[in-house]
């Protein structure tokens, strides 16, 4: 990269070739106001707020689109520039309904969530110099997650760009012309009926009050919130997040990878951005014990612990069975394993252990995200990647849209991914493997084919994936089975899922550690297999509680600090976003109390964690 020397407001600035004036100025510590510009998106040049004066140019130039050249002399704050900015801001402010005090995002300068308002304060707009003609534009509330109020839209196009450039879903675009321009979903559908995948990227980048969350709206300004930077561990992709929390409630979750130049471009999926806000399940808030008449009664925490100890002592280790969620921090998983070993329990498994055992016997080359992006043929087998691993879905779309990759979907159900594929093959659930033969030749002929196996239902079905994996192994086709939970990989690596559960039938005491998941993962028949007693530890009310003898409240993942092993192989430490109630414990906190009482000695997990 060649160096470029230029002058900004008389000060010599060194930039690199290809930089825009805005980038060079910001790097050198100058501030130029922007609105339509957004880090990580292509420059739009629409709002004209970032105009600067460049010596030799009769017109003002937008700093966000003008590349630096050697010897350029830029003035970013002359009277002419300031006046032009104010004028343009005046036009934008009078264009639609920007009566700020009635807007969700409005606030004083220090606390507003609205970039438009902030800029207006900065250029000191105190009144409308032009007559305001309030035309009524539609308000689209059909999206399950956000509201689109066209009356507050400034047509900056950030949402359009993020939707096509980062998410690669291209739902949004401009429709109509001039002052009648309107952001449209697909060909002018309501958002809720469009191809929108509710990832919320558009909402995050909206600089005005046009797009806002149905969950966070009217819950308070971000400036009033505690801001916690961490990542989302739900699916194992591990997108970085900024979490805004007020009174121990999440107000909003934003992707933060964009500014860091992450591959994901700072996007999140619907589950990641809205999942915790959409949670409708009820928490287990108190320890419960079954009384002599078979009814649940509230108990003290200590009573519940005592009952658990009593049960663990009552059965010999070979009669005790551990069933554990893999969506727990590695510290918990390691502790559970250590606890079981010390106790002498051999039958321990995660709910997705079957998947591990299905995959382990094949030696196929593993695909990573880059492989997807560079692929020319992507075979997507199984469930709905948009819902399960949404951000990975964006890599597929980018490959299809930007590089012309071919996507073939083999799935029993419709998905919003279908419209990007050249071929959708509907198969009955469970017979995904039966069509491998038909695609073998095509895959072999491709130069960088990738097979993606999606969905717990699919990966649990050995018959469905066996032929794909055998083929991948034999033909050395890069393959990516997507794990069902955010820490499946750690659970598998720690060896929790490696046991076969042959001796289940002889089990008498079941120790269920559910974490956040509900037991729909576990066979409902588990309890019918002859267990005499069940200890249940989990965050949410679960159908399995009906059968439990002791129920202990657990932390949700939002409250539980710990380590996760991501699909990318990266190991990341999660910072809790919310505080747990007093009695809600993480599995390791609970088990260490039990271990003390059972005198199991110290359970060391450090080496296990470092081995991840």
């Amino acid at each position, binding site marked *: 990269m060649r160096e470029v020397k230029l002058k900004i407001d008389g000060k010599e600035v060194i930039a690199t070739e290809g930089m825009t004036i805005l980038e060079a100025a910001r790097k050198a510590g100058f501030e130029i106001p922007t609105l339509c510009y957004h880090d990580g998106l292509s420059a739009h040049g629409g709002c004209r707020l970032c105009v600067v004066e460049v010596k030799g140019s009769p017109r003002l130039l937008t700093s966000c689109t003008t590349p630096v050249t050697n010897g350029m002399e830029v003035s970013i704050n002359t009277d002419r520039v300031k006046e032009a900015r104010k004028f343009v801001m005046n036009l934008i402010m009078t264009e639609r309904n920007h009566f700020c005090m009635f807007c969700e995002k409005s606030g004083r300068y220090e606390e507003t969530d609205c970039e438009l308002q902030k800029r207006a304060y900065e250029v000191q707009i105190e009144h409308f110099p032009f007559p305001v003609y309030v035309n009524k534009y539609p308000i689209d509330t059909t999206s399950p997650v956000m509201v689109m109020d066209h009356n507050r839209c400034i*047509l900056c196009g950030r949402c359009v760009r993020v939707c096509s450039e980062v998410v690669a879903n291209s739902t949004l675009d401009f429709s109509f012309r*001039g002052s009648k*321009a309107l952001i449209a979903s697909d060909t002018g559908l309501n958002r809720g009926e469009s191809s929108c995948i509710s990832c919320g990227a558009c909402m995050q980048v909206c600089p005005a009050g046009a797009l806002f969350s149905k969950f966070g709206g009217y819950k308070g300004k971000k400036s009033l919130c505690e801001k916690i930077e961490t990542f989302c561990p739900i699916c194992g992709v591990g997108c970085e997040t900024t979490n805004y929390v007020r009174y121990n409630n999440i107000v909003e979750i934003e992707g933060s990878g964009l500014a860091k130049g992450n591959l994901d471009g700072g996007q999140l999926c619907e589950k990641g951005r809205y999942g915790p806000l959409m949670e409708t399940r009820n928490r287990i808030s108190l320890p419960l014990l079954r009384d002599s008449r078979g009814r649940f009664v509230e108990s003290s925490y200590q009573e519940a612990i005592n009952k658990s100890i009593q049960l663990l002592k009552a059965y010999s280790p070979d009669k005790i069975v551990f069933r554990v969620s893999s969506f727990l921090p590695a510290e918990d998983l390691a502790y559970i394993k250590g606890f079981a070993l010390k106790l002498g329990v051999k039958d321990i498994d995660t709910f997705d252990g079957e998947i591990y055992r299905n995959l382990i016997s094949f030696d196929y080359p593993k695909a990573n995200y880059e492989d997807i992006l560079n692929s020319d043929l992507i075979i997507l087998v199984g469930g709905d990647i948009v819902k399960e691993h949404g951000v990975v879905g964006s890599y597929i779309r980018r490959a299809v849209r930007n590089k012309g990759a071919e996507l073939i979907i083999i799935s029993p159900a419709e998905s919003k991914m279908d419209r990007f594929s050249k071929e959708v093959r509907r198969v009955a659930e469970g017979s995904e493997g039966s069509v491998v033969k038909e695609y073998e030749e095509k895959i072999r002929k491709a130069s960088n084919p990738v097979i993606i196996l999606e969905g717990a239902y699919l990966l649990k079905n050995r018959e469905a994936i066996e032929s794909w994996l055998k083929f991948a192994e034999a033909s050395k086709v890069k393959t990516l089975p997507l794990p069902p939970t955010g820490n499946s990989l750690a659970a598998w690596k720690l060896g929790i899922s490696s046991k076969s559960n042959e001796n289940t039938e002889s089990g008498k005491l079941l120790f269920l550690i559910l974490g956040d998941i509900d037991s729909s993962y576990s066979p409902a028949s588990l309890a019918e297999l002859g267990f005499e007693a069940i200890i249940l530890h989990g965050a949410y009310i679960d159908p399995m509680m009906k059968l439990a003898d002791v129920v202990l409240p657990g932390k949700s993942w939002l409250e539980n600090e710990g380590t996760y092993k991501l699909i990318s192989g990266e190991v990341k430490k999660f910072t809790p976003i919310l505080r747990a109630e007093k009695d809600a414990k993480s599995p390791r906190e609970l088990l260490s109390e039990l271990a003390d009482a059972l005198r199991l000695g110290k359970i060391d997990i450090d080496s296990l964690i470092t081995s991840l």
Partner: protein
Amino acid sequence: MRVRSLDDLKAIAQRALEKLCGRRIRIAVGLATCGIATGAEEVYSAFLKGIESLKRDILLTKVGCIGYCREEPIVNVVIPGKALLLLSRVRPEDASEILKNLIDGDVPREKIVCRVKEWDHLLEKIHYGDGFTDVSLYEDTPFFKHQRKIVLRNAGIINPEDIEEYIAVGGYRSLYKALTEMTPEMVIEEVKRSGLRGRGGAGFPTGLKWEITAKSESDERYIICNADEGDPGAYMNRNEMESDPHSLIEGMIIGGYAIGAKEGIIYVRAEYPLAISRLQIAIEQSRRYGLLGENIFGTDFSFDIRIVKGAGAFVCGEETAMIASIEGETGRPRPRPPFPAEKGLWGKPTNINNVETWCNIPVIVYKGGEWFSKIGTKNNTGTKVFSLVGEVQRVGLVEVPLGTSLKRIVYDIGNGCPDGLKVKAVQIGGPSGGCIPEGLLDIPVDYESLKEVGSIMGSGGMVVMSERTSMVETAAFFVSFTSEESCGKCAPCREGLKQMLNILNKILMGKGSPSDLELLKELSETIKTTSLCGLGQTAPNPVLTTIKYFKEEYEELIKRYD
């Protein structure tokens, strides 16, 4: 048949010359859109019927438009050995009378506009002959007298749907010359020497533009012909395409050779169905004759042209918006730099020129840049086609050397306003242009002079307004047009024009206040300096020039309220 050599071309030319001025009587009906609108198709059918019933060997053919729109439908007739005669306002019922006369070697006098002894197609001269000496010569006819036809050299004379007639008047000889005698650099050099500037309006030197695109590093390059003519009242390009499509095609092939492009695209608005169909016919014919496609003239140069139809957005005439539209995106301009010459269509270096620019190329290559540069003035060489419309007596399409005064065009060619009205102003450059008052009509028509008085050359719309025209209404009309056609991408153009229109309407309703004039000026200046593309940057011109030259009209309207 595939043309492989100059001899092939000459053989075709010889054959086709027989059609133009051979041993048969030739009747050519002007069938461009303007002619058709006044009933030329019915005239054509009437002649066809008449000839059939006479059972005589008379050649009936269609030609484009010679530009004298007021006199449409125009029919030209050639009696072997005699001068070509232009007949005006021919109605279907005139056909039998004309035919009868023609067979007797005569023509009804009252229909004749003028006679043409010899027509200079620049690459070839066609000598028709004498006769009808009592009829005024083309060169002496007021409407044609001051014109100089380079771009329209074939318009109205040859059949636009017959490649052989084009070849007969020297067509494709420039292409042959370029491909066999010149390197691409030499072609560019020749265009640079000619001094030709872009006829789309901005006047950027064409040769330089080609050179930049040719030198941009890339494995692929594209050339585009901008035929998205959208200025109200302007139809230069339409006629150029309808009357002489091969001229455009030949220009583009030469351009493709010079720039190193393999594909050319003609972006033409869908509202020009006749132009599109004639272009399609011409492209097909050129392919069939081996003049378009693989290995043209047997050289290793291959080039093809395809047509992309615009959906009717004015802004798509802007280069980057046009590229977006061709790529299948919404037609909205993109920030420049990067300029299309570096990163254009599909991210590849792209050269875009207006129809008229392309049509000049064959002449420049054949006659030499030197020859071309002597027409017009020093920095404004060549000719420019204008559509002279509005309140002017001789409405039509005129081609004059650059540097011709506006007075000459409006009065000598156009004969001023009808009904004895005085000319008040001339609006040049379409909605982006300005209104030039009568007092300034002495200025020469060139890029710089027009800019000096607040207008632009534009693509060639020239609207004459009489003393009864309200200049405030005129300004409001143009702003309503640009406001409607603003793409909406950048705020100053999108919202600023809307505000301007609101203020203008307020003044027109008699509710304006003196401060509105200041606000209008301020809005205009900001829109000009901060807009993204040419549309916004020039849209306030009609307002600024009318305020500058006709301020009293604004004040009069405002006073009424006070």
